[in-house]
């Protein structure tokens, strides 16, 4: 059975032509394709006036997801993940960073259903069909945020494979801030393990481990208030390179977008940073609360990060996080 038929059958969509042009249905098809397909390809990431080519190898075998991203320019940095472990290879720095997750979060991250509470924060629209030069006909779907606390997405989904061959990330005004488009894509159910080996000499690397610590330790910090729709989805202690000690890691999510909050003791001899910074589609806001450095990081607008980081309080000093009243305003 080919991929398209398999995905359609698994979703029960083969006999549902009435929903053929529904944005929700196309998102479900795309999610199934992303979670079940093994493929090799190249894509271009464009952001902030920069463009970078990357190669991707993605394999799903017996429920285990393996993925390798390689920058095709410069130092050819790599990111390899296998289930709950992510390794970032930086050959130009002779460095590798290992990040291991606990079992509390699904790294595969299936797409959520845009129903129920999700429908309060996002609107999924069927935009239409569009033919892309490299891939032929695509179904275009827009995921629009209903307030200014999250980003929007426009997705070009290949009608044959259901893969998102192009995606635009837009800010609250609809302005595109990042475009990601495939230039090559080939499906392959027999990708060997060797395809996930980094293309560099690992013996020459210095290894740094960022890992969870003491899962049973009760988190000492909480957000007193969060933007509408956001909830605490994970909390724990972990090490972060350069932090000088254990860091309290909280994750708040609205079901699609997520924000990580890191609370740590200030590093001795270093003035705590305050303000906003950005890397690609992700931003960070850092402030100081009760003598601790609080940094919120995520693929959301900076105002969302500022909102959450500024409301972080020691447990006991503030009530459990509650979403602010929904408001369709932008600032």
């Amino acid at each position: 059975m080919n991929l398209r038929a398999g995905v359609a059958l698994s979703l029960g969509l083969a006999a549902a032509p009435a929903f053929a042009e529904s944005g929700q249905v196309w998102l479900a098809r795309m999610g199934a394709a992303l979670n079940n397909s093994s493929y090799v390809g190249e894509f271009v990431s464009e952001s902030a006036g920069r463009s970078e080519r990357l190669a991707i190898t993605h394999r799903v075998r017996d429920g285990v997801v393996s993925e390798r991203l390689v920058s095709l320019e410069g130092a050819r940095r790599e990111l390899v993940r296998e289930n709950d472990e992510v390794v970032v290879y930086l050959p130009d720095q002779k460095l590798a960073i290992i990040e291991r997750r606990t079992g509390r979060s699904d790294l595969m991250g299936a797409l959520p259903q845009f129903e129920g509470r999700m429908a309060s924060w996002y609107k999924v629209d069927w935009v239409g069909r569009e033919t892309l030069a490299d891939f032929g006909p695509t179904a275009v779907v827009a995921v629009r945020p209903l307030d200014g606390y999250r980003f929007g997405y426009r997705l070009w989904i290949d009608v044959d494979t259901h893969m998102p061959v192009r995606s635009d990330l837009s800010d609250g005004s609809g302005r595109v801030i990042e475009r990601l488009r495939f230039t090559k894509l080939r499906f392959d159910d027999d990708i060997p393990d060797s395809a996930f080996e980094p293309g560099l000499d690992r013996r020459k690397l210095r290894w740094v481990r960022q890992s969870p610590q003491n899962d049973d330790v009760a988190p000492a910090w909480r957000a007193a208030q969060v933007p509408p729709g956001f909830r605490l989805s994970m909390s724990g202690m972990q090490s972060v390179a350069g932090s000088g000690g254990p860091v309290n890691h909280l994750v708040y999510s609205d079901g699609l977008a997520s924000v990580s909050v890191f609370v740590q003791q200030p590093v001795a001899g270093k003035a705590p940073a305050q303000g906003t910074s950005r890397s690609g589609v992700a931003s960070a806001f850092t402030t100081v609360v009760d003598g601790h450095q609080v940094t919120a990081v995520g693929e959301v607008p900076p105002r969302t990060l500022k909102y959450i980081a500024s409301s972080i309080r020691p447990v006991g000093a503030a009530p459990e996080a509650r979403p602010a009243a929904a408001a369709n305003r932008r600032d």
Partner: protein
Amino acid sequence: MTDRIKEQLSAFLDGELPEPESALLLKRLERDDELRGALSRYSLIGAVLRSDGDVPAARQVAARVSAAIAREPVRPAGLAWIPGRAALTRGAAGIAVAAAVAFGAVLLVQQVPVGDAEAPVAVMALAEAPPVQPVVDDAGPLDAPAEPYVTPPATDAPAGIAPAELANYLVAHYGYASPLVRRSVGAGLISDDDPALVEAAPPEAATRP
């Protein structure tokens, strides 16, 4: 910046670049802001990796640059009135190069518990802070069309955590990123234009099991 130049920078910082090539590299540093930024990052990374956060090691790198600048031939005094501008340029560029390296040292000072950071170095380093991309948070109509697409240019950086620190947090956040953008977050992490990820390794740095 080409791989060849990066290799030269790396060799220079390791003290392994032949003197003639060092002189050429310094000339290029004088006129290339991007290269000076790269030098500051490389010097920091190299110092950290060689010394586990030992500040004197970073200073050794800066000293190596200073020594190389000092080895540059002095221009004849008789040409002072016209080449004087060149000499002035050379001096300013030399300071900029030294400052670029010093930036690495200052970052290191900020990352480790050392109390003898030299204030003049810190002042110069602040002027050489590497750019961080701007934050876009403008209001506007929800239904504005996404086309045509023009990637906005990077502008001056707002205040915030150091790029390397941000990258370390992003590694920790990666697994929790939205499935729609996780690949973008990953791409940002390994982008060649992005900064170093680690400035000071944690105690649990270890060899791969």
